[in-house]
């Protein structure tokens, strides 16, 4: 079984995003970048499926400028077998990404595509579902458990209020939630090995996809700052304030 796993280069999750002074976007100059945490979980899940003997090959794909090859190498160091970079200028919108991934799916014909449920920059939570719709595949989003057997995948999903399990006919799309697994650290020998693994570069034109968007960003602003309040000295004072000042109880 072949697995395709999509990875995105995003701001490191430990870095607080700051808005540019001209309110055009978030400032990413000299900011530490990393593999999107949910994508890392997707890579880990693919590697575990390979270690269990369920998967035989893992292809990691990323879309963006040349710098995103770094995140493909991260996936290769974690255990993916080969990489594909689709060269684009900036980070395209979810629908364009889904169309590019659909073109890769048509070429590679994976049995399972693993993606993060959302990227921590755009926070859209769209790409996996859009790819599933374009390919006509079933989807198991926000997965906390994935079991593959006999041409189908049983996926346990984290939903509001609890868990839901669905059964999907393969090929299928799965997007990962936080508790699916804890990604391993790449070992130094594996990081070295990853440098020699094959990495193909393609363009959207080669894949027959035109990148376009119906959305324009008017402005980007920092969120309203919440003012800190006061410290109270006792539970009694707290109750008094909540009753008489804030009037919320």
């Amino acid at each position, binding site marked *: 079984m072949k697995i395709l796993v999509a990875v995105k280069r995003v701001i490191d999750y430990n870095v607080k995003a700051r808005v540019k002074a001209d309110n055009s976007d978030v400032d990413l100059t000299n900011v530490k970048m990393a593999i999107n945490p949910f994508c890392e979980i997707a890579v880990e899940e693919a590697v575990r499926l390979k270690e269990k003997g369920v998967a035989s090959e893992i292809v990691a794909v990323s879309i963006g400028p040349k710098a995103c090859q770094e995140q493909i190498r991260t996936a290769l160091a974690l255990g993916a077998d080969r990489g594909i970079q689709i060269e684009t200028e900036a980070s395209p919108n979810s*629908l364009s990404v889904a169309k590019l991934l659909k073109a890769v799916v048509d070429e590679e014909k994976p049995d399972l595509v693993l993606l993060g449920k959302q990227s921590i920059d755009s926070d859209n*939570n*769209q790409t996996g*579902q859009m790819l*599933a*719709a374009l390919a006509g595949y079933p*989807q198991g989003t926000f997965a906390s458990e994935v079991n593959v057997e006999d041409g189908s995948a049983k996926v346990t999903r984290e939903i509001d209020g609890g868990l839901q399990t669905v059964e999907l*006919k393969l090929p*299928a799309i799965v997007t990962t939630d936080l508790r699916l697994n804890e990604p391993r650290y790449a070992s130094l020998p594996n990081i070295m090995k990853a440098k020699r693994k094959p990495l193909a570069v393609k363009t959207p034109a080669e894949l027959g996809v035109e990148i376009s968007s119906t959305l324009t*960003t008017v402005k980007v602003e920092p969120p309203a700052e919440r003012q800190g309040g006061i410290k109270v000295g006792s539970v009694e004072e707290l109750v008094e304030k909540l009753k008489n000042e804030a009037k919320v109880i």
Partner: protein
Amino acid sequence: MSILVVAEHNNNSLNPATLNTVAAAQAIGSDVHVLVAGLNCGGVAEAAAAVAGVSKVLVADSAAYEHQLAENISLLVAELGKGYSHVLASATTTGKNFMPRVAALLDVDQISDIIKVESEDTFVRPFYAGNAIATVQSSAAVKVITVRATGFDAAEATGGNAAVEQLSIVHDAEVSSFVGEELAKSDRPELTAADIIVSGGRGMGNGENFEILYSLADKLGAAVGASRAAVDAGFVPNDMQVGQTGKVVAPQLYIAAGISGAIQHLAGMKDSKVIVAINKDEDAPIFQVADYGLVADLFDAVPELAEKL
């Protein structure tokens, strides 16, 4: 210009988040239709027809829609959506699951998690975990949007008298099936709908200690939440998690006990009207956003608070 709102429900009752989504639709335009797709969901359709400001309710009643499987629902919504200027759903795990499929089927971008409507084509949404707020304009023929409930005051659940129309469209993609569901059972209000929330963090120490929060919550009629640290430590189940990667809430009163105030947690609760923090570490970042901070051991302060209320 008509707007279609896809109702969220469990075939028995209308999820309150739908009322917020109807309110968002009303901020865009006046002709608001609600789609109720499910199985034996007539009661939900009646509830939707009673929502103030709804002019029409469409009902698609079929086994294919019973569990809101995205593969089936998206085909229905995309087919109906072609006739609307906007299609809206709540940014819950259900809405987030099927709406991007709808957008892809209609070949348009989706606008996720809006918190404000500027005009019929311009919307405000947070990104970068709430550290930046974007205003985006859409030129799409059909604008596919998910709505964050905390951004909009709920529409009135009564006062409306919409016409109910039965649809006979059945879409079954036959590629997925529902196996089962484990839902937490609780008499307390849902986190996203509660007026008061009591939340615990790593400082709770273990799951048993959450009992003192449950006692306080029951005194207040509150829901109980938790920080990611408490969930990751296994104290409580993940559906209690408040934060960027959990639920985003904005109650009248949010009481944070033993929560340090990591960015990821603040992103999920900083729009609460009044925030109370109880923490023994006086330098905890939670105090920077709290209206009332109490530097105290929560194991003393929380039971005392419950007692004094």
